[in-house]
């Protein structure tokens, strides 16, 4: 991790941006961040996935969000949420093809601002969990800056990064597709999943995460710090 990222993740930086934050982001920062020295078992995670119209947070938009909460290393399905977001621009053809979300589906959906008002309290005090987190962090950070005056800082675990560490540690050569969510799940004897939407991906990542933790420490006593990205 570079020095710049270390600064951005620091407590000091958090105190700085907290003061600029408004609305639900302000409330989010009022809750202390998850303690990196506590055990994974005692930490709550929010497994989150976004679907977007493209890969550039500055140009593209979020079309849907899905999440589920993990407590005591147990995925709580009662906490599942899936939200479609009304984009400001018309959906591009390529985006419709990928996500199969049409303009008509999202005509009555909440704005991204309203969606974040719902999501941010769920993230407060928890650790973000995602497969390839830069997408989620990039888009949510951009949106926070745009609507609530400050960037988003949240301790994050990336299942893709954990998988990469596993492969490096095993000394095996990386095969193509080895870091894909479905490949990784199969390798951990998890059931096949069909990538339908943001929620199915979030749940798929949460299962993979449990398997990755079980491999490191079946009792979940290892410190959060050791798995943060």
């Amino acid at each position, binding site marked *: 991790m570079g020095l710049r990222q270390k600064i951005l993740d620091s407590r000091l930086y958090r105190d700085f941006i907290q003061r600029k934050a408004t609305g639900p982001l302000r409330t989010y920062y009022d809750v202390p961040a998850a303690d990196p020295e506590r055990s994974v078992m005692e930490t709550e995670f929010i497994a989150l996935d976004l679907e977007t119209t493209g890969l550039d947070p500055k140009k593209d938009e979020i079309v849907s969000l899905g999440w589920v909460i993990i407590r005591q*290393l147990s995925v709580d399905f009662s906490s599942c949420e899936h939200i479609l977001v009304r984009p400001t621009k018309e959906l591009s053809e390529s985006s419709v093809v990928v996500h199969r979300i049409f303009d008509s589906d999202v005509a009555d959906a909440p704005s991204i601002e309203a969606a974040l008002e719902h999501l941010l309290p769920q993230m407060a005090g928890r650790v973000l969990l995602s497969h390839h987190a830069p997408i989620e962090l990039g888009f949510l950070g951009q949106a926070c800056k745009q609507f609530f005056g400050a960037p988003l800082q949240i301790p994050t675990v990336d299942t893709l990064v954990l998988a990469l560490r596993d492969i490096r540690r095993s000394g095996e050569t990386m095969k193509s597709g080895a870091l894909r969510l479905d490949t990784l799940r199969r390798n951990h004897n998890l059931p096949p999943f069909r990538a339908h939407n943001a*929620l199915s991906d979030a749940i798929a990542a949460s*299962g993979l995460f449990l398997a990755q933790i079980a491999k490191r420490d079946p009792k979940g006593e290892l410190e959060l710090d050791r798995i943060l990205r």
Partner: protein
Amino acid sequence: MSIELEEIAEFLKQHHPFDLLPDEEINALPKRLSARYFRAGTKVLSPEEQCLHLYIIRTGGTETRDPNGQLLARLSEGECFGVRAMYQNGRAANNITTLEDSLCYLLPEKDFHALTGKYPQFSYFFAQMGGERLRSGMQLLESRDDDQLKLMSVKVSDLIARELVSIDTSASILEAGQLMSKERVSCLLITEGGDGVAGIMTDRDLRNRVIAKGRSYDEPVTAIMTEKPISIDPDQYAFDALLTMTRNNIRHLPVMKDGKAVGMITTNNLLARQSLSAVYMAGRIGKLTEPEEMAKVIAQVPELLSHLIEAGATSQNAGHIVTTLSDAATARLLQLAEDEFGPPPVPYVWMAGGSQGRQEQTALSDQDNCLIIDDAYNADQHGDYFKNLADFVCDGLNKVGYVYCPGEMMARTDEWRQPVRTWQHYFNKWIEQPEPKSLMLCSVWFDLRPVHGTKSLFEDLHRMIISKAKDNRIFQAYMVGNALSHHVPLGFFKNFVMIRGGEHDKTLDLKHNGVVPIVDIARIHALANGVEAVNTYERLNAVKAFPSISNQGASDLLDAFEFISITRLKHQVRQIRRGEKPDNFLQPESLSAFERSHLKDAFSVIKNLQGALEHAFGKSGT
């Protein structure tokens, strides 16, 4: 509900007992679950540990051991553990360890009890596992609601409540009436020369044939008795007795052993056990006149089968009961045919072959039957009558639900509607000049059982078949060759646990890979040793006494037969419950690891005894 949670609901729907829950309930279930993951070798629960959830295995497998380390079960995908804890205040009873990396869904205790409280079927499944009701044979027999099974396990001889009351043919009506009054019986057996049975007299006969007719009490009792009454053997089951009475509309049934009366049973002996759907179904068939109407009754057979299997019936019980209904439909159609075409010009007997002959039918059966006609048969004079009769019955059976035999082994085929002499000729040829084609017929025609008509026509033929087959080593060796052509799928299991994806479309044919080879082995030993039985259990039990198979071998084969048969029946019941058409193709992943290992053992037994067969009889042909 989101699509991802829908997948969890779909998973639950595929597994017993969740498949018993209504859709709205099962769709609401995923939201109440949580998921946990355990590495292989993780101890998930220990005795006395707190356990506030029912664990449903999503992927992977676990092992259950009691506090002393004794292996109790191996569970795999779709099975549950933590059941005992649900019934003992959230305290785990056993050690649960994962055998593979496993993902489990956890259902909270309160949600579990909400479901068991609401759905008795669901609750029943767990109650058995939870040890509320230990599942032992004795308790099964004593529990309240399985009268049907009781009747299947109680022999007629056990039903005889008191000494037989009888009177000699020389007695008068008055003397008979006085004896009945003194002995407080509703029925009297009329004997001739000690214990030869001449007839039977009931209090109904006194009313209808004496008082109503103004007959003198001094007349001999023989004037009003029913001669040569229908009787039953003491070794038959209570179920058969009730069936005989229902079918013939009689209320008293003499029990006869070797031509001597040994007792009497009445409907009162049996009436206490009245919730007998199979008997009622058979009785109903006996009153119907249209095959389409009978079809409605027979359509309930799958339901009956589910009920029997869930109540813990053995496959032999189930086979016997299901076959009884085929017999009832066959006999009824023959009565109707005789009404239509008149009484038979010469005696005949209608024979069931194949699984109906062996009394081993399951939910799906086609018809195998033939007609053996008295040698007074003359094709020119009588040919049309029996052709019409056979067409009527075979067409009727087809309409009722027993589809035409694809191999045309039916009485409506000219070749299989022949006088005794022709059948003798057939069997002579099959036994003395065996050839592959004729061996194909053996599985049907060496398992014959008379269903309706003059049974003595078959008895002589049967004796001839038994004595010829017993002495013919070449025939036996051909039969062995044929039996060994059914391969046992042991290789299938070898890598089973390791196989992931790709291979899963493979299924196991429980009929041709499991049931048929055992039936074949039993048939060979029975024929070679002159055993007359055709039912596979009876054959295997009978051949224990002969040197061609070891006692242990026969016992092992009986166990294997029961296990494979019941696995097949349970598979069919699951399909019936899901509204699918039952078949014989099992996906091995639908079994628990424990069942899989049992099944593998059962196949090993077959393999060994196939080998022993060759050793005992040699092998020829195919």
